[in-house]
């Protein structure tokens, strides 16, 4: 109970000092919060140095193409309270750029290289950010952006072999695997 109170106090303080919004407890031990882009690095530094969130589980990006922004997710873990805090930061999709956190966790630059290559998000100052990571010599739009048509690219680039058949799993189950059951009811 005390831990829950401590967590509540901490979140209230963060809301006051860093304008943290959208605080949601997803399940015991996992809370998500949102913060503005210019406050993000300070908040994460605060969480690491003063609140015990010493471990960066991972960082990744979500492409909300309909709403016109990327959400960068920093998943932080506190070993003392065994709680995970997910910090969400919305950044603009056009000329996407974000503050680098490689000064907080050295391993973050690997994630940042990946984000730059797969989503096209720039992290100025991050080590080796310009280098190729998984895709060598990639000259299309970054493949994890949702406007990238993977199937079309794949058909254009790679030769396929004849004889491969694709069936709709739903129809196949109705017609071939469970024909006697008939329909959804």
């Amino acid at each position, binding site marked *: 109970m005390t831990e829950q109170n401590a967590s509540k106090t901490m979140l209230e303080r963060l809301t006051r000092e860093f304008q943290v919004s959208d605080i949601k407890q997803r399940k015991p031990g996992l809370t998500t919060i949102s913060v503005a882009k210019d406050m993000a690095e300070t908040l994460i530094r605060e969480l690491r140095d003063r609140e015990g969130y010493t471990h960066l589980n991972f960082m990744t990006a979500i492409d909300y193409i309909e709403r016109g922004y990327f959400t960068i997710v920093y998943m932080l873990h506190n070993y003392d309270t065994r709680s995970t805090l997910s910090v969400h930061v919305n950044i603009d999709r056009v000329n996407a750029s974000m503050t680098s956190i490689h000064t907080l966790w050295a391993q973050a630059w690997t994630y940042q290289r990946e984000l730059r290559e797969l989503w096209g998000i720039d992290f100025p100052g991050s080590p080796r950010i310009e280098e190729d990571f*998984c895709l060598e010599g990639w000259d299309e739009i970054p493949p994890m952006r949702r406007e990238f048509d993977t199937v079309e690219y794949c058909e254009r680039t*790679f030769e396929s072999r004849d004889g491969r058949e694709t069936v709709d799993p739903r129809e196949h189950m109705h017609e071939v695997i469970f024909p006697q059951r008939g329909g959804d009811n």
Partner: protein
Amino acid sequence: MIKSLNTESTLENAGLSAEEQDLFSNARPKAYEPYPIEAVENFANWCRANSLWILAFGTGCGAIELRPLMTARFDANRFGIAGRPTPRQSSVFIIGGYSSVKTLKRIVRSYEQMQGPKFVIALGICPVNGGMYWDSYNTIKRLDQYIPVDLYITGCMPRPEVLVGGLVELKKMIKEGRCDGANRYVEKFDWYKANQKRVIKNWNMPDYNW
């Protein structure tokens, strides 16, 4: 500078810088010609079949199936099969499953570094037609577009028993002289090279010789 003995045509090596041009030969690959006496060639094939050295290069999830192959349970040594750490010493290249474009570059490089006679086994469904990666932006669908494949072992994943079965089949094929993948590579070299260069966009290595 090493000049090609084949004066008919040489490779451009366009991916290399001016300094590197001198370091690599620009000769085209040569086809293997069997011994004129058939019995000698048969004997050579028998020898080749009984000392298959696998290149220890795990190129996909199927590489995990190669490890138990060498252990006591499956014991590939009884077939004269051993792992080698370098392409120069190996004769069998097992492509263990899917290969991304980045890996394909290393596969081509390792394959060309291998000395003849050399044989390629494609393990799993992914090198056949893409398998579960049929719509992946970074995984090739057909391996035989890029390097010649002698034997396919399909499945996802094939168990080591099937791999042993495939290697026994490969031995049979070598003894009958049916493994001509390396010669196919020489014959259709330009076709293979064009396919490789279409997907490997940063071609910064020599075209054939290492």
